[in-house]
C-alpha cells in the first residue's frame, strides 16, 4: 500500500468515524440507551457467570481434596476408630490411611473444617503435589507443624494476605493455629494439617474420624467396618449442576432482554443517520468502508459497554454470592467460598459474549447499511413499507421458532420424566421468543382493526394511526417487556406454589417435638432413659446409611443398576404414620404402612421419577450380608433432597443394612414442656447444644434454606423486569423530540395540550396493557413448564401448579405503570414546552 493510499484510508477511518459518532453528540439519549442496554445485559450475564465460576472453582477444589475420591472405612457400630485400629489394619497389610476431621470456630464465627492427614499413607495426589508447596514436609510433620489453607479462608482468621505465610492466627477460643502455608487448591474454610497437629487442636486423643483407601484397593470391608466406595459418593458438582443451569437460564434471559434494547437503539440511530450515511457515500466513501466504520463503531461501544457490564457484574455477584453460597451449603452440602474467584477465561468470556450479542443485535443494521442506496429517499413511507416487510418476517420467524418449540415438546413428551433439562429450557426459550416475535404483528393487526372501528372519531383514529407509525420503534421494547413480564410471572408462580407445598410438607414430616442426636456410643443408654420418662409419648429413632441399588424389577422385567442410594430408617409410630405424606400407594395408606412395618420400603419421588418406579416394583439393594430385596409400597415427596432415597422401618435398616444409630425424634405427651426435657437430657448426659433441636428450630432452618434458595431467582427475575422497563423508557425518551414534532400540528389545529398528553398516555398505556395481557397466559404456560419439566428434571420433584391472582394483577399493573411512567417524562417536557417552540418544530418538519 502506497503511503498516500495509506494516509487516505486513515483519513477515511478517522473522519468517517468522527462523523458517525457526532450523531451521538447531538443525541446523547440514544448513546445512553445503547450503552445502558449493553451495560445491563452484560452486567446481569457476567454477574451470574461470576457466581457460577466461583462455585465451580469451589467444587473443583472440594473434589480435588483427598476426602472425596477415596474409599472410606468407618466402624459398623458408629463408634470412633482409633489409632490401634489403624495400626492393626496396616500390620495386616491393608493400604489404609488415617483421617481426622473436625470443626473449629474462627474468631469471626466461621466454622472451619480441620482435616488431619498422614501424608505417608495417604493415597493419590496429596495436596503437596497440587498445592505447589513442597520441600516442607519436615515442617509439616514436626512441631509447630503447619496449617495449609486457601487464601480465601484468611479473612475468617483475620489475617492479611501479605502477612499470611508463617502467621499463627488465633481461633475463637484463643488457641493458636500452626503457622499458615497458603495452598490455593484447597476448598474454602478448610484447614489441612498433619494428623498429629489436628489431634492436638481437636483434642481427639487416639480417635480417628475414618480411614481412607485408594479406590477399589480393598476387596472387601475388614471385619466390623463399613466400606463406602468413592464411586458411591456424589460430588457437589454433580448435585448442583441443575442449580447453576437455572441461574444461567435466568442470566441468558436478562442478556436477551438487554440486547433488545441495544437493537432498538442501534435501529433508531441508523434511521436517523440515513441521510448522513448517504452523504458519506456520495462523498466517495465505499459501501464496504461504511460497513467497516459502523463495525468499528459497534466494537468501540461494545467494549465500553462490556467493561462497564463486567465491573458491575462482579459487584452484583459479590452482593449475591453469600446467599448463593449459603443456599448451596445448606441444600447440597457443597462448600462454596463467599469470595469471588475468577479465572482468566471468565473475563475474556464476558467480553466475548457481550460483543457477540452486540454484533448479533447490530447485524440487521450493518446489513441495511451495506445495501444503502445513494439515491433512495429516506422517508417514512419507504420506511413503513420496510416495517411491513419486517412484520412479515417476524410472523414467519415466530412461526418457525414455534415449530421448533413444538418439535422439542414432542421430543420431551417421549422422554422419561426427569430427563431433558436443557431441552426444557430450550422449550421455554422457544415459547418466549415465538411470543415476542408475534407480538408486533399482533399489535399491528389489532391497531388496524381498531382503526376501522374508530373512523368516526378523528382524534382516536389519529392516535391509532400514529401508534401504528410508532410501532416499529416501540416493538422491540414491547417484546422485551413481554418476555420479562411473563418470565417474572412464571417464576413467581413457581416459587409461590413451591412455598405452599413445601411448608405443608414440612408440617407433615416434622411430627416430633424434639430431635435428639446422641453420640453413637451412648445411643442405647439415652434411648433407654427416654423410654422411662413419663412425658415422652413416643420415641421415633431414625438411622441412615448408604447402599447401592443393584436391580429393579418392574412388571416382570429386571433391570440392572449400580446406583448409589441413601437409605433412611424411620419409626412408623402412632404420631408419624397419619401425617407422613405419601404420593402414591398400591392399595391405600393403611396397607402401605402395614407393608412398611413388615419390612417393605417406601421410595422418594426423586428415585421414582429418575428410575421410572411405582408401588409394587421390587428393588435389590447391596447389603453387608449380600443382596436384600424390598418391594416398593409407596412413593413419598421429599422436597429439598437432591438424591434418590429408600425409606425403611428403622429396625429393618439396623438388622438388614447395619445402619449406625442416628437421631431420635421425641413426641411429648400433651402439655409437657419440651425445654424441661431438654435441660434434663443435657444435665443427665452432658449433651452439647447442637445435639438437641426442637421442632420449631428445624422448621425455621428449613424455611430459611427455602427462602434463600429462591432469593437469587427472584432477584434476577425482578432485575430482568427492571431492564425491560428501562428498555421501554429509553426507547420513548430517544424519540421524544420527534414525537413533539408530530404532536405540534395537532396542537396547531387546536387540540389542547392536556388532551395531547392524554392521547399519548392512552396510546402507550393501551399498548402496554395488551402486552401485559398477553404476558399472563404466557407466564402461566411458563410456570407450567417450570413445574412440569424444569423442576422435575432439575430437582426430581413435581409440584401442583398454583396460580396467584394477585401476582397476575401485579404483572398487568406493572406493564401499564412502566408504560405510563415512560410516557410521563416526555409528556412533562411537552407540557413545559412553550407553544412557540412547538410551532417552530412544526415549521422545521
Amino acid at each position, binding site marked *: 500500500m502506497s503511503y498516500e493510499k495509506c494516509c487516505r484510508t486513515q483519513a477515511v477511518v478517522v473522519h468517517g468515524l468522527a462523523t458517525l459518532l457526532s450523531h451521538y453528540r447531538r443525541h446523547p439519549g440514544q448513546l445512553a440507551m445503547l450503552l445502558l442496554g449493553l451495560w445491563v445485559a452484560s452486567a446481569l450475564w457476567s454477574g451470574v457467570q461470576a457466581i457460577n465460576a466461583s462455585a465451580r472453582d469451589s467444587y473443583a477444589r472440594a473434589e480435588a481434596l483427598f476426602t472425596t475420591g477415596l474409599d472410606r472405612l468407618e466402624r459398623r457400630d458408629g463408634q470412633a476408630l482409633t489409632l490401634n485400629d489403624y495400626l492393626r489394619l496396616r500390620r495386616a497389610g491393608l493400604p489404609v490411611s488415617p483421617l481426622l476431621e473436625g470443626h473449629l470456630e474462627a474468631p469471626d464465627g466461621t466454622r472451619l473444617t480441620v482435616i488431619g492427614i498422614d501424608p505417608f499413607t495417604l493415597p493419590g495426589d496429596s495436596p503437596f503435589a497440587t498445592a505447589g508447596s*513442597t520441600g516442607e514436609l519436615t515442617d509439616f510433620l514436626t512441631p509447630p507443624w503447619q496449617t495449609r489453607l486457601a487464601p480465601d479462608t484468611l479473612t475468617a482468621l483475620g489475617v492479611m494476605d501479605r502477612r499470611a505465610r508463617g502467621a499463627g492466627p488465633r481461633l475463637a477460643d484463643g488457641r493458636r493455629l500452626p503457622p499458615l502455608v497458603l495452598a490455593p487448591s484447597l476448598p474454602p474454610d478448610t484447614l489441612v494439617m498433619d494428623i498429629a497437629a489436628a*489431634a492436638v487442636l481437636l483434642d481427639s486423643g487416639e480417635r480417628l474420624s475414618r480411614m481412607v483407601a485408594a479406590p477399589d484397593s480393598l476387596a472387601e470391608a475388614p471385619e466390623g467396618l463399613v466400606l463406602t466406595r468413592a464411586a458411591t459418593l456424589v460430588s457437589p458438582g454433580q448435585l448442583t449442576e441443575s442449580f447453576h443451569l437455572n441461574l444461567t437460564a435466568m442470566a441468558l434471559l436478562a442478556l436477551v432482554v438487554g440486547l433488545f434494547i441495544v437493537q432498538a437503539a442501534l435501529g433508531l440511530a441508523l434511521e436517523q443517520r440515513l441521510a448522513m450515511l448517504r452523504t458519506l457515500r456520495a462523498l466517495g466513501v465505499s459501501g464496504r468502508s461504511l460497513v467497516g466504520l459502523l463495525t468499528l463503531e459497534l466494537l468501540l461501544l461494545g467494549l465500553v459497554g462490556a467493561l462497564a457490564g463486567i465491573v458491575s457484574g462482579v459487584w452484583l455477584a459479590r452482593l449475591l454470592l453469600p446467599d448463593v453460597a449459603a443456599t448451596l451449603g445448606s441444600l447440597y452440602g457443597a462448600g462454596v467460598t463467599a469470595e469471588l474467584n475468577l479465572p482468566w477465561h471468565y473475563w475474556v468470556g464476558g467480553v466475548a459474549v457481550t460483543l457477540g450479542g452486540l454484533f448479533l443485535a447490530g447485524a440487521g443494521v450493518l446489513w441495511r447499511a451495506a445495501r444503502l442506496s445513494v439515491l433512495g429517499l429516506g422517508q417514512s413511507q419507504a420506511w413503513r413499507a420496510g416495517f411491513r416487510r419486517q412484520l412479515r418476517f417476524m410472523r414467519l420467524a415466530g412461526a418457525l421458532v414455534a415449530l421448533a418449540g413444538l418439535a422439542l415438546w414432542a421430543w420431551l413428551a417421549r422422554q422419561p420424566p426427569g430427563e431433558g433439562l436443557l431441552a426444557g429450557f430450550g422449550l421455554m426459550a422457544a415459547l418466549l421468543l415465538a411470543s415476542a416475535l408475534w407480538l408486533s404483528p399482533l399489535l399491528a393487526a389489532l391497531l388496524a382493526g381498531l382503526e376501522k372501528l374508530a373512523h368516526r372519531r378523528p382524534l382516536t383514529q389519529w392516535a391509532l394511526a400514529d401508534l401504528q407509525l410508532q410501532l416499529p420503534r416501540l416493538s422491540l421494547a414491547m417484546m422485551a417487556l413481554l418476555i420479562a413480564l411473563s418470565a417474572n410471572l412464571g417464576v413467581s408462580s413457581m416459587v409461590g406454589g413451591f412455598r405452599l407445598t413445601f411448608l405443608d410438607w414440612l408440617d407433615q414430616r416434622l411430627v416430633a417435638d424434639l430431635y435428639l442426636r446422641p453420640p453413637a456410643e451412648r445411643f442405647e443408654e439415652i434411648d433407654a432413659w427416654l423410654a422411662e420418662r413419663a412425658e415422652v409419648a413416643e420415641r421415633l429413632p431414625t438411622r441412615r446409611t448408604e447402599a447401592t441399588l443393584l436391580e429393579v424389577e418392574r412388571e416382570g422385567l429386571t433391570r440392572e443398576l449400580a446406583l448409589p442410594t441413601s437409605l433412611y430408617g424411620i419409626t412408623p409410630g402412632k404420631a408419624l404414620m397419619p401425617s407422613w405424606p405419601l404420593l402414591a400407594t398400591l392399595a391405600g395408606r393403611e396397607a402401605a404402612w402395614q407393608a412398611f412395618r413388615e419390612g417393605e420400603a417406601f421410595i422418594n419421588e426423586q428415585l421414582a421419577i429418575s428410575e421410572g418406579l411405582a408401588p409394587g416394583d421390587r428393588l435389590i439393594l447391596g447389603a453387608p450380608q449380600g443382596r436384600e430385596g424390598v418391594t416398593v409400597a409407596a412413593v413419598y415427596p421429599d422436597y429439598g433432597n437432591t438424591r434418590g432415597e429408600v425409606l425403611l422401618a428403622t429396625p429393618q435398616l439396623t438388622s438388614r443394612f447395619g445402619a449406625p444409630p442416628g437421631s431420635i425424634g421425641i413426641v411429648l405427651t400433651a402439655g409437657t414442656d419440651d425445654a424441661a426435657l431438654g435441660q434434663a437430657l443435657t444435665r443427665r448426659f452432658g449433651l452439647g447444644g447442637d445435639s438437641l433441636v426442637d421442632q420449631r428450630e428445624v422448621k425455621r432452618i428449613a424455611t430459611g434454606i427455602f427462602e434463600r434458595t429462591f432469593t437469587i431467582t427472584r432477584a434476577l427475575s425482578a432485575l430482568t423486569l427492571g431492564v425491560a422497563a428501562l428498555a421501554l423508557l429509553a426507547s420513548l425518551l430517544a424519540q421524544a423530540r420527534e414525537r413533539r414534532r408530530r404532536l405540534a400540528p395537532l396542537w396547531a389545529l387546536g387540540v389542547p395540550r392536556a388532551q395531547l398528553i392524554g392521547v399519548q398516555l392512552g396510546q402507550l398505556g393501551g399498548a402496554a396493557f395488551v402486552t401485559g395481557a398477553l404476558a399472563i397466559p404466557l407466564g402461566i404456560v411458563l410456570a407450567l413448564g417450570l413445574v412440569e419439566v424444569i423442576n422435575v428434571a432439575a430437582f426430581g420433584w413435581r409440584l401442583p401448579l398454583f396460580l396467584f391472582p394477585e401476582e397476575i394483577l401485579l404483572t398487568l399493573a406493572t406493564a401499564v405503570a412502566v408504560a405510563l411512567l415512560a410516557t410521563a417524562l416526555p409528556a412533562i417536557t411537552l407540557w413545559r414546552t412553550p407553544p412557540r417552540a412547538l410551532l417552530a418544530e412544526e415549521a422545521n418538519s
Partner: protein
Amino acid sequence: MNVTKRVATILVLLWVAGCEGERSDSGPGEPAGFAGLGEEAGDFAQAHAGIELRFPEDHGAHPDYRIEWWYLTANLEDEQGEPLGVQWTLFRQAVTPPEARPEPTPWAADQLWMAHMAVSRGETHRVAERFARSHSADERNDRGGQAGVQAQPFQAWIDDWQLASRVEAPEADTFERLTLTSHHADEQGGFGYDLRLAADGPLVRHGENGFSQKSADGQGSMYYSQPFWHIEGSVTLDGETRAVSGRGWLDREWSSQLLGPEQRGWDWFSLHLADGHKLMAFQLRGGGEDGGDYRSGSWITPRGDATALAPDELRMTPLDTREATGREVPIRWRLEVPRVDLDLIVEAPHAERWMDTSVPYWEGEVIAFDPASGEALGEGYLEMTGY
C-alpha cells in the same frame, strides 16, 4: 504407580531437606551429597572411630542418629536354575535431633520410616515402597507400631513387611536365623517373597572395628554386615510363585552425616566369590584426596575374617554404560585389589534395575568373571546412586 510418584516428590524433598543444620559449601538450596546424606550432623549423635559395636543391641534402631538402614540383597535361583534377585531395605530417618523431639502425643513423630522391596528376574524388575512414622518414646515401638526395629528377639517391620527372627529361645542369638516376608499387590498379579535366612558365618565389622570412613576428611558411619546368609523359600513374581534358594548379604549402617558435602553419589559392590571369599567395595564420587573419589572396602575370608582395604588398595574402573529408565549408568566395571591379587570384571546382565522410588537409585544383581579367561568367579549386588 500414582502413589509412588506422589510420595516420591515428598520424600525426595524430605530426605533432602530434613535437617536443621547449616548447609555447608554446596550452593544455597542444593542438598549436600546424595539425598542429603552429606548434611552436617548438627545435634545428632556422631559416628566415629572407637565406638564399640554391641550385639544384640546394635541390631536395633539408633534413633539419636539421623539415618540408618537394614539392607538385604540376595542372589537366588529357582528349581530350573534361573537366577532371581531380591532386595529388601528398611530405612530410618530422624526428623529432629534427640533434644528437639516433640511431645509423644498421638500421631506425633520424630522418626520416619521408608522401605523398599524389589524382585528381579531377567528383564523384569518390580519395585514397591512403603512409608511410616513413629515416635521414639512410644511404647508401641517394641512391636505394635506401624514400623520399627527391635533388637531382641530381632524384628524389623513396616506394615506387613517384616524381617524377623525365627529363633525361639530368647537368650540365644536371635539374629542367626531370620524370616523375611514381603508382598505387594499390583496390576501384574503381585510380587513378593517368603524367605528363610540362616547365617553360615559370623557378623563382619567394616573399617576400623565397625567405623567405616566415607571421605578423606573423616566423615563416616557405623557399618557391619552379615554376608553369609543361606536362603531358602519362595518368590512370587507377576502372580507366579517359585521355590528358590541362594545367598544373601545384609548390611547394617547408621550415621548422622554419611557423606562429605561435595560427594554426589556412590558405587557399592557386595560380591560372593566362588572360592568362598567375599568382597565389599565402594567408591564415593568426590570427597577423596585432592577432590578425587574416595574408595574403601573389606576383603572377607570364608571364615569371616575381614581386612579393611585402604583407598589406594582398590581400583574401580567403569568400562561400559547402559541406559536404565532414561539414565546412563555404568553396568560393566573392572575391580582390582592388587594386595590380594584380585582382578575382576563385574557386570550387570540386565541394566533395567532402576529403583524408581522416592530416592531413586540403581540396584541389581551382578556377575563377576576373570578378565582374561572369562571364567565365572562369583555373583553379588551392585548399588549405584547419584546418576
